[in-house]
């Protein structure tokens, strides 16, 4: 067959055009940065040239030596590495256990208030990750490391020990709780579809409950557990805000904190070396995950819809258990909001007497009396409105771009299933998820702050924020695109093709309307993630184009806790309102996006 004919028939299929374009674009936007990072780890930075006695830009092994084989390597790399691995693993375990148990109770028992419980359970994930960290501090901080006591000590008079208030323990718990909805969505998805007859059959054979759990239920949900592990592990390892809020007070260092220290000017080469190692670890987990789930595929196919799932009757413990779950979930999902509201109303932190309350931080025109600068109250603050507008603009842009691209990528990956190009795009579209946000933004900063190919310098522009947000959130959208396209038989589209419906009309009149809710879900997750993103933007935002989260970070650095708490409350409320509205109007939801 002639080559031109082959090419022509290849590109006659729309999915191949999409795959090709996405492959080129994503290759440029993800693999090229990766290459630049690698190159930067081997070149001397301007600030290091003197110390190393070489010209800036010349090749050096210094960065790798310093993080791996130097007497300081322990503090710079190995200790933080161990801390990162420990907290990420612990977070995975916590989220899987908590989310998994909850999923089991929701799908398999006659627990009360299921609807309310399951929508509240998702809250921690749609809130910014540091929300729970701040709430933890508000509740449990102690005066041992300076500052005031938290609410808990104020009420009970019991001082919290350092290990409880700061460091590995709260980092793991908070991260675990933040990602527990992942586990709930994925494990719940399998449990909901799986035939409970499988479990009942075991009952008939006289298996004991525990044996049944170990031999039937756990293996059945194993693929979901492994996928959750992968998603949570990479996210936890590259999270920056939570460890810096909870770790810094006791100098508990993780890798991202080292990244921030080195990338913010001093020695980016070292930072990139650390980032590359982090990516390597994530890729390792991914590869392991893929091997395991492949060899266990037989379990995932157990998804024939069964008629009636018979629910375990909780009998007398029903009320108690329901109350316990409600209490726990309120504590994790609603209580933080309450503490933010509270802290934003208090003049002197740590003092909860009525006389110490004020609305000034929200509505006063001029707070000169309370703060050294005359920062107006939040609702009257032009900086806040500017940042809010910027955040909304950015999130909408990223959501539209990532959602559309991701959906198209997902569509093309499923339609082109089995081809090498589809496999390549599949991995490429997931890759940004594994990139630590901070390192990703640092490399974008260095790549795009100078003229690059046909692009002018983008430093400080809205465009670079939109670009990086789009690439970073594309994995969510492509995952949800793949999920929804898998459920749509290719014949639905072919039936249109054969009677002459063009591709564009097939998409707009058949594919999208049929998969409307999961289609919109593909936009929802990038939007929410972008609204609450900090690490990705903290290096790229200039004071002129701050977004809500970087403004929050600024307030936090200033130590204006009333402002940071108030702003946090605002962000959470905005995100929840948007999520709720979209859910009610289109049926889209983040569970559909993640793929439950």
């Amino acid at each position, binding site marked *: *067959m*002639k080559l*031109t*004919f082959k090419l*022509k*028939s290849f590109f*006659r299929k729309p999915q191949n055009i999409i795959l090709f374009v996405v492959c080129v674009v994503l290759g440029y936007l993800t693999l090229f940065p990766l290459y630049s990072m690698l190159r930067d780890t081997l070149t001397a930075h301007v600030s290091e040239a003197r110390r190393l006695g070489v010209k800036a830009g010349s090749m050096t092994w210094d960065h790798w030596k310093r993080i791996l084989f130097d007497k300081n390597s322990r503090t710079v790399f190995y200790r933080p590495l161990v801390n990162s691995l420990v907290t990420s693993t612990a977070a995975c375990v916590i989220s899987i256990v908590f989310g998994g148990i909850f999923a089991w109770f929701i799908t398999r028992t006659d627990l009360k208030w299921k609807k309310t419980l399951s929508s509240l359970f998702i809250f921690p994930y749609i809130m910014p990750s540091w929300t729970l960290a701040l709430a933890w501090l508000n509740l449990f901080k102690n005066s041992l490391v300076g500052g005031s006591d938290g609410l808990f000590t104020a009420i009970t008079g019991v001082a919290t020990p350092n290990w409880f208030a700061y460091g590995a323990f709260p980092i793991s718990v908070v991260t675990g709780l933040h990602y527990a909805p992942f586990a709930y969505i994925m494990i719940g998805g399998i449990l909901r579809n799986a035939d409970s007859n499988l479990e009942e059959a075991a009952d008939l054979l006289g298996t004991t409950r525990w044996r049944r759990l170990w031999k039937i239920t756990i293996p059945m949900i194993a693929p979901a557990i492994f996928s959750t592990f992968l998603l949570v592990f990479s996210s936890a390892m590259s999270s920056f805000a939570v460890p810096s809020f909870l770790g810094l007070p006791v100098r508990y260092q993780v890798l991202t904190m080292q990244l921030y220290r080195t990338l913010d000017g001093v020695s980016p080469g070292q930072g990139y070396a650390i980032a590359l190692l982090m990516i390597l670890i994530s890729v390792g987990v991914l590869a392991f995950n893929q091997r395991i789930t492949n060899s266990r595929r037989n379990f995932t196919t157990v998804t024939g819809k069964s008629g009636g799932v018979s629910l375990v009757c909780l009998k007398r413990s029903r009320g108690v258990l329901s109350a316990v779950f409600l209490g726990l979930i309120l504590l994790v999902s609603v209580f933080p909001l309450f503490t933010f509201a509270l802290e934003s109303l208090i003049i002197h932190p740590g003092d909860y007497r009525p006389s110490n309350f004020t609305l000034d931080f929200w509505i006063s025109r001029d707070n000169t009396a309370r703060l050294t600068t005359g920062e107006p109250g939040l609702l009257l603050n032009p900086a806040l409105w500017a940042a809010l507008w910027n955040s909304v603009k950015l999130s909408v842009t990223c959501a539209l771009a990532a959602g559309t691209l991701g959906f198209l990528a997902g569509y093309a990956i499923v339609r082109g299933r089995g081809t090498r190009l589809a496999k390549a795009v599949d991995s490429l579209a997931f890759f940004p998820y594994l990139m630590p946000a901070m390192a990703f933004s640092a490399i974008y900063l260095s790549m795009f702050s100078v003229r690059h190919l046909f692009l002018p310098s983008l430093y400080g522009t809205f465009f670079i924020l939109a670009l990086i947000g789009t690439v970073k959130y594309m994995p969510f959208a492509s995952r949800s695109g793949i999920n929804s396209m898998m459920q749509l*038989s290719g*014949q*639905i589209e*072919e*039936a*249109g*093709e*054969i*009677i*002459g*419906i063009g591709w564009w*009309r097939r998409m707009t*009149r*058949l594919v999208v*309307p*049929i998969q409307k809710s999961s289609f919109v879900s593909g936009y929802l997750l990038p939007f929410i993630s972008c609204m609450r993103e900090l690490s990705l933007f903290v290096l790229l935002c200039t004071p002129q184009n701050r977004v809500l989260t970087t403004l929050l970070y600024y307030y936090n650095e200033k130590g204006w806790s009333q402002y940071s708490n108030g702003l946090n409350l605002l962000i959470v409320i905005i995100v929840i309102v948007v999520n709720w509205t979209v859910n009610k109007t289109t049926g889209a939801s983040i569970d559909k996006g993640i793929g439950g």
Partner: protein
Amino acid sequence: MPRIELRNITKKFGNFVAVDNLSITIEDGDFITLLGPSGCGKTTTLRQIAGLEMPTSGEILIDGRTVFSAEKSIDVAPKDRGVGFLFQSYALWPHMTVYKNIAFGLENLKWPRDKIDARVRELLSLLKIEEFPDRYPSELSGGQQQRVAIARTLATNPRVLLMDEPLSNLDAKLRMEMRAELKRLHHETGATFVYVTHDQLEAMTLATKICLLNRGLLQQYEAPLSVYNRPRNVFVADFVGNPTMNLVEFDVEKTEADSVYLSRDGMKAVFTLAKDSGRLSTGDSAAGGPGASAHPAARQGDSEPQGTVGGASERGDLSRLSGRVTIGVRPENVEVLGVALPTEAEGGATSRAGKTSLRTRVDTSLPSGMETVLNLRTAGGVMLSVVMIGSVDFAAEEELEVGFKPGRVLLFDSDGTLAASGSLCFE
């Protein structure tokens, strides 16, 4: 009216050959079924005709126009091939009403509204679904959905209708009804139908010609009764017919021009060529191959096996046979001659070469009212199935004398190809 030609079509998925050098011609107005076991390449063949899948090599012509040719770099888009495709899963659009499902393709063609309406009404009544134009597919039964799918496919008046196991999701009774319906449609629309099924009964009852595939290779392409009575090889013989043909292997001892001496496990038999051999072997040509064409007359014509077949001219005599051959007899061509009497132990009618009957024992007897299926065991341990009209019940282990209808015994040579038909007697 279109005629479809496939020339040397090969389709590979990686290294796996799904369709292997397939050449068939489907005449205008034919009702062809593609038949074969699961995974033999039926769907792939159909999709290639429609243009949904691209052949690796070969040519496809519809109505004299080349719609695909690897050599000439031609690949016409599905919509321009003038074909309709009926999917196994119906693939109705769930978010559109029945009316809209049918009208959508016409709207796309920018038909005027009143013409669309008239056409949809016409189809609704043709398929007897006038009552539910406003229902959504999920509110219809399987059979009704099936009709909507057919109506949608017919809307744009395709001259070729390709159907992929359209009835496999229906229950047995509905299937019977829909079969009749399809035959009626074929008659009323005058279109060329290509129909995929792995149900051989469906193929027998619907088709003007059956195209039987196995592992991507064409086995036989002839009218249903020819395929039934003169299966080209052991695979076809075994695949078509229920209960399946009795196939027994023998070793060739000695050959003459018109007879073969066979043996197995101490059983000896002689196969004799049918007397009026060769009468049909020139007319109704052999299976498959380029240029194989349909003769509507072949259905009415006497297509019962007669003498040597399969290129009779060069295979005319039996003396070339050697090694291990297979004898095949359809269950209805085994006759129960009577209950064997002990005194007649060595009995049975004899012919030129020996007895024409065989002594067997009843293994199972399965009367179903209209007919009775017997499973018999010979002294050599060979199992034979027999179909008798009417319900007769035999006790297990009862001894029966059976014979094979003269002229209805098939002989397949050592590579499984049909070599001759004739009679069998035993020594």
